C-alpha cells in the first residue's frame, strides 16, 4: 500500500469519527426536543411511577449531563437498556435485528450486482436487438416502481393467490420474496449502468485494436471491456447499500421481516431514546464505513484516480 493511500484512509477514518460524533450529538438533542416521551401513553401513569421511571433511566438529570453520560457509555460500547422493551438491552436488539437485515440486504446486494452486470452486458452486446429491448423495458419499469409497491404486489401474487412462498418473513423460505423485492431496483439500475458504460467501452479504440488483432470475442468482452465498464458500477455500490438499508425498512415491514428497520421505525414512534440513539449510531457508522470501502475499491480498480 502506498503512503498516499494510507494517508487517505487515515484522513477518511478520522472524518468518519467526526461525522458519527456529529450524528450522535444532533440526534441526541433533536430527539429530546421533540414533544412526547418514552413513558407517555394513552393512559397516564401515576406521578410516583413517572418519577421512578425517570430516575431509573437517568432522565431526571439535566440534558447536558445525560448527554455526557451517554457519550461515556458509547466509548465502552454500552448503549444502555431499551426504555420501552423492558429488560432488553439496546445492543441485543440491534444485533438480533441486524443479523436478519444483513442477511436479506447482503443477498439482495449480491444478487443485484451479479444479475445487473450480466443483464447489462447482454443488453450491450445485443444492442438494439429484441433481448436488449426487453431487458431495457423491464429494468426501466423496475427502476420506476417504488419498492413498497413491488413488495405488496409480490405479497399478493406469491404469498396469497398462488401461495408459493409463505408470507412470513421470519422463516427462511419467507425471505425469498423480500430479497427479490429488495434487489429489483438496484439490479435494474446496475443493468442500465453496465449497459451504457459497456457500450461506451466497446466503442473505444483499444477494443477495436484487440478485435483487429484477432482476440476471441469472449476474451475481448470479459478481459478488456468488462473490467473498465465496471468502474461506474463500483461507484454505485455505496449508494446501493445505503438504498438497501433504507429500502429494507419498507420491505421488512410489508413482509414482517424481524430486521433492524422495524426496530428503528418503532423506536422513534415509541420515543425509546436509547434505542433511537443505538440504531442511528449503528446505521450512520455502517453507511460511513461502506462509503469508505467503496472509495478504496474504486482506487484499486482504477489506478488513475489520485487521492491527493
Amino acid at each position, binding site marked *: 500500500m502506498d503512503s498516499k493511500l494510507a494517508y487517505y484512509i487515515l484522513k477518511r477514518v478520522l472524518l468518519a469519527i467526526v461525522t458519527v460524533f456529529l450524528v450522535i450529538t444532533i440526534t441526541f438533542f433533536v430527539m429530546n426536543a421533540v414533544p412526547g416521551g418514552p413513558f407517555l401513553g394513552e*393512559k*397516564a401513569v*401515576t406521578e410516583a411511577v413517572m*418519577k*421512578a421511571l425517570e430516575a431509573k433511566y437517568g432522565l431526571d438529570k439535566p440534558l447536558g449531563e445525560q448527554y455526557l453520560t451517554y457519550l461515556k457509555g458509547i466509548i465502552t460500547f454500552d448503549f444502555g437498556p431499551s426504555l420501552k422493551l*423492558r*429488560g432488553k438491552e439496546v445492543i441485543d436488539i440491534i444485533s438480533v435485528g441486524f443479523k436478519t437485515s444483513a442477511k436479506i440486504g447482503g443477498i439482495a446486494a449480491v444478487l443485484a450486482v451479479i444479475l445487473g452486470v450480466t443483464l447489462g452486458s447482454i443488453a450491450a452486446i445485443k444492442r438494439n436487438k429484441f433481448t436488449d429491448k426487453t431487458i431495457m423495458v423491464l429494468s426501466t419499469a423496475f427502476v420506476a416502481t417504488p419498492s413498497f409497491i413491488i413488495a405488496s404486489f409480490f405479497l399478493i401474487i406469491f404469498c396469497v393467490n398462488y401461495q408459493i412462498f*409463505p*408470507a412470513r418473513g*421470519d422463516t427462511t423460505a419467507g425471505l425469498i420474496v423480500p430479497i427479490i423485492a429488495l434487489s429489483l431496483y438496484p439490479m435494474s439500475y446496475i443493468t442500465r449502468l453496465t449497459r451504457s458504460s459497456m457500450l461506451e467501452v466497446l466503442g473505444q479504440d483499444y477494443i477495436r485494436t484487440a478485435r483487429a488483432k484477432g482476440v476471441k470475442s469472449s476474451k475481448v468482452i470479459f478481459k478488456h471491456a468488462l473490467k473498465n465498464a465496471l468502474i461506474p458500477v463500483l461507484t454505485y455500490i455505496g449508494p446501493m447499500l445505503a438504498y438497501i438499508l433504507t429500502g429494507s425498512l419498507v420491505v421488512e415491514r410489508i413482509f414482517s421481516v424481524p430486521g433492524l428497520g422495524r426496530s428503528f421505525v418503532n423506536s422513534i414512534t415509541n420515543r425509546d431514546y436509547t434505542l433511537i440513539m443505538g440504531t442511528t449510531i449503528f446505521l450512520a457508522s455502517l453507511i460511513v464505513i461502506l462509503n469508505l470501502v467503496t472509495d478504496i475499491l474504486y482506487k484499486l480498480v482504477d489506478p488513475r484516480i489520485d487521492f491527493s
Partner: protein
Amino acid sequence: MKLRKLFVVVLLLISVIALAGCKKGDKDTLVVCLGPNPATIDPALNSSVDGATMIIHAFTGLVGYQQNDKGALELVPELVTELPVPTKLQDGKYQYVFTLKDDLKWSDGSKLDANDFVYAWNRAVNPNTAADYAYMFDVVDGYNAVTEVDDDGNIVNPNAKLNVTASADGKKLTVILSSNVPYFFELLAFPTYMPVKKSVVDAEPDKWATEVDTYIGNGPYKMIEWVQDSKIVFEKNPNYHNADAVKIKKIEFALSDDDGAILANYKNGTYKLIDSVPNDEISSLRKEYKDEFIIAGQLGTYYLNFNVNDLSIYDDKIVTTEEERQKVRLALSLLIDRNYIADEIGQAGQLPANSFVPIGLTEPDGKTEFIAKNGPKGDGAGYYSVENTDEAYAANCAEAIKLLQEVGYTFDTKTKKFTNFPSFYYITNTGTGHQAIANYLQSLYSGYGIIMSIVNQEWGVFLETRKQGNYTVARNGWLGDYNDPISFLDMWTSTSGNNDVQFGKDAHANVKIYGKDKNQSWAETYDKLIEQIKSSSDPVKRFELMHQAEDMLMTTGAIVPIYYYTDLYMVSPDLKGFFASPLGYKFLMYAELK
C-alpha cells in the same frame, strides 16, 4: 442453453426451499397474530391488550374467565376453592379470605402458595417497579401509603405494604379493601393481579420476563421461545392445575404490526386468529368472510373533547360566561351525525354514542345495561338523540342552531350559515380512520359557516399536546380497564393524569358554577362525587351517584362521544372453543383445532 439449464436448477432450488418453509401447522400447533413484539410480558408491567392475552396464558390469577353454555363469560374460581363473600370490618373496611386449592405449582414444578400473591401485589404497586397499572390496586387498603410521594417525587413510606397477608401454611390469603368494591373479582382476573415467582424476579428484576428459563408462570402454557419481532412460542404447562382441560399443545404468537402482511397470512391459512385488519378492507372482508369476521363489543368510547382552558374557540365579546361556553360546545356536538360516522367511516359495527360510559357495563342487578338508565332523565335516552332517522338528526341540528343563536351568534337564514363564529383548530393523530372523521367534521362545520382547521400530529407529539392542554379540540378515545363505570368516570377528577379536558386545572380550577347552588368548583363537586362513589358500600346508591357524575360531565359539553368501540378480529372456522372478553383479551386455553 447453459443459461436455461441454470435457470431451471435455480427455480427448482427455490421451490424446494419454499415448500420446506410451507409448514401450515398441524392440529397441535396454533399460530395466531395479535400484535407486534410486546414491550413486556411481565404481569405487573404490561399495559397492552396483546401482552395481556399472552400473560393470561402463562399465568393464572385467583379468579378467571370461562365461557358458559350460552356463550356468556363468567368469572370462576381459578386458584381458589370458591369465591368468598366479603365481611365488613368494624372500621368500615372489607375483608376477603381466599382459600387456595391444594397442590398448586409453578411451571417449573415448585410450590406456589399465598405468599406469592403477597409478593406479586406489593411488587406491582411499589413505585420503583414502575408499573403502568399500579393504580389497579387503589382499592386495596394500604395503597395510598405505599404510593405517597413528596413534592420532589421521593417515596414517603418506603416500607409500607398493602394490607394483604398469607396464613402461616400459605393456604389462605387475606385481603383488606378500603371500601366495598363490587368489581373486585374482575380485578383478580386482571394480569396485574397475577402471582409472580419471587426467586426468579428478585434475581433479574428487569430481564426475568424476557428469557425462557426465568419466565416461570402458573398458567395453562409456558414460554419455550421468544424470537424478537418474530414469534413467541408457548407450550402446554403440565403443572397447570387444570392441565386436562388444555387441548392445543403449542401456541405460536406471530409478532407483526403490518395489517397487510397479517391479513395475507390469515388468507393463506397460516394464522388462525388475527386481531387487526387494514381499515380500507373492512367492508369487503365483512362480505367475503361473513362467518369469520367478528365484530364484538368492547368497553370503550371514541370521542372528541374540548379543552376547557382554551378560549380561542369563543368570541370573547359574545361568549362571556362558562354557561355560554357549555352551550357552544353542546351545539357543536349536536351538529355531528354519529350514525354517518359509524356506518360510513367506521364501517365496523360501531354504535353511535349518546353518552360517555359505553355499552357493555351493567347495573348492580347484573342484567340491566348502565346505558339503559343514562341521560338527564335516567331513562336511557342518552344526552341527545342518536336515532338513525333524518327527522331526529334535523331536530338535533335545529337545537344546535338555537343554542348558538341564544348565545349571540348570528345565523344567516338565507345562506344557513353563521357569520361570526371564530375559526378553530382540531388536533388528531395520523391514521386513516381519525383523518376521515376529521375531514367529515371539517366539511360539516363549514356547511354552517364554521371554519375548522385540522392539525395532524404524530402519536407521541399528539399525546403530549393533549396531556399538556395545548389544543382547542382533540380526538380522543378511552378503553375501560374493568367492568365498572367508575373506570370511565374517575379519569375526570381534577388530579387525574388522564383528564385531557383539563377540568379543575389551571384557570378552570377557579370556575365556580358547579353543584346545587352553582357556586362550587370542579374539585369541590366532581372530585367529591367520585370520592363518595369509591367509598360507597351500597351498590344501588353507588350507581345512582355514577349516573349523577356522568350527567355532570355531559352537561359541560366538553366531552363529545362519537361511537362505542368494537373489537374486530378474524377467526378461522378451524378454531373451536375460543372466546374473547370485552377488554379485548383472547382466550385460547380451552380451544381446539379441527
